[in-house]
């Protein structure tokens, strides 16, 4: 009869945690892959307008980013509430755009320079005057390929 007299305790056996590392690694890899690293810390408000006639900016290393918009609330005391340009990690003046483009060009291989694109990430509330000034600087320095970075969506949303 001892055959049937096993443990009589009712508590459940411990669940094996041997696979926990696997799950953790899986999550880790997933987030590693899915995360986009931000190159710049934004110091401005950057709510992009939406558009539907868009092209993808594929080659990340060939894109130079120029941000513009109103300084975010944290920087408002020091930078004012007028729309500003942000290059790399600091506020900049329109006159600094040229130097920025030249520095970016210098850091790229020579044969890639003609393919460089300037992505304008401009907040929807910005006045066109500032954007026009940036475009004028870009024209002067022959950085003619630009991309108005937008969100995907209907252009009609922009007017509300």
């Amino acid at each position, binding site marked *: 009869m001892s055959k049937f007299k096993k443990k009589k305790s009712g508590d459940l056996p411990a669940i094996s945690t041997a696979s926990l590392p*696997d799950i953790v690694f899986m999550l880790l890899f997933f987030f590693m892959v*899915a995360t986009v690293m931000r190159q710049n810390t934004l110091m401005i408000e950057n709510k992009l307008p939406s558009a539907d*006639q868009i092209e993808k900016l594929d080659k990340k290393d060939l894109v130079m980013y120029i941000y513009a918009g109103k300084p975010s609330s944290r920087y408002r005391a020091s930078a004012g509430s007028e729309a500003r340009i942000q290059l790399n990690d600091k506020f900049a003046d329109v006159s600094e755009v040229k130097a920025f483009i030249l520095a970016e060009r210098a850091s790229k291989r020579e044969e890639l320079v003609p393919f460089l694109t300037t992505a304008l990430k401009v907040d929807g509330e910005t006045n066109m005057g500032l954007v*026009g000034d940036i475009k004028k600087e870009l024209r002067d320095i022959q950085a003619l390929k630009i*991309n108005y970075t*937008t969100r995907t969506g209907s252009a009609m949303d922009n*007017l509300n």
Partner: protein
Amino acid sequence: MARRSAPEVNAGSMADIAFLLLIFFLVTTTIETDSGISRKLPPPQEENIEPPILKQKNIFVVELNKNNDLLVEEVPMELKDLREAAIKFLDNGGGQGVEACTFCQGVKDPSSSDNPTKAVISLRNNRETNYSAYIAVQNELVAAYTTLRNREANRLFGKSFVQMEKELKDVNYSGNKESLKEDIKKVQLMFPEKLSEAEPKK
């Protein structure tokens, strides 16, 4: 009656399941890329160059004033009608003789554009104009060109212009890329994007 303890679950295959999931996510996730409207700026101009003389009827003036109101040929217009109006202007084909447009399906109004290759859209904005309104207008104008190009590409090559451009970028495209490039160029030349932007008014 003694309760039987549950047998331990074999966890040996858990790792396999984990890896399966991992590979699934690896394959299906795409890193988010930025996208936007690509444009080319005109090269800087020399001071004493005379602007080319254009017939008034070949210019389609789109203006955004400082209150973000849209004026097309000096008449107020809703944004949603802009695309249609731009298509109508570009596709008009009112030219005669050498300037005639063989593929246009417009109304051939003699007071509108002669030929898509002659038609220029002039976009003017104020310094106070909102950037988002400007993008909306840009978007509609680009859409007008794309619609017309799609139509012609469909007629000539049996696929839309957007599709052709997509195939050109596709690494796995099986057809001849050189001839595809030629075809794209042909369609682009039929409806060249002539979008002129004036310096914003003060």
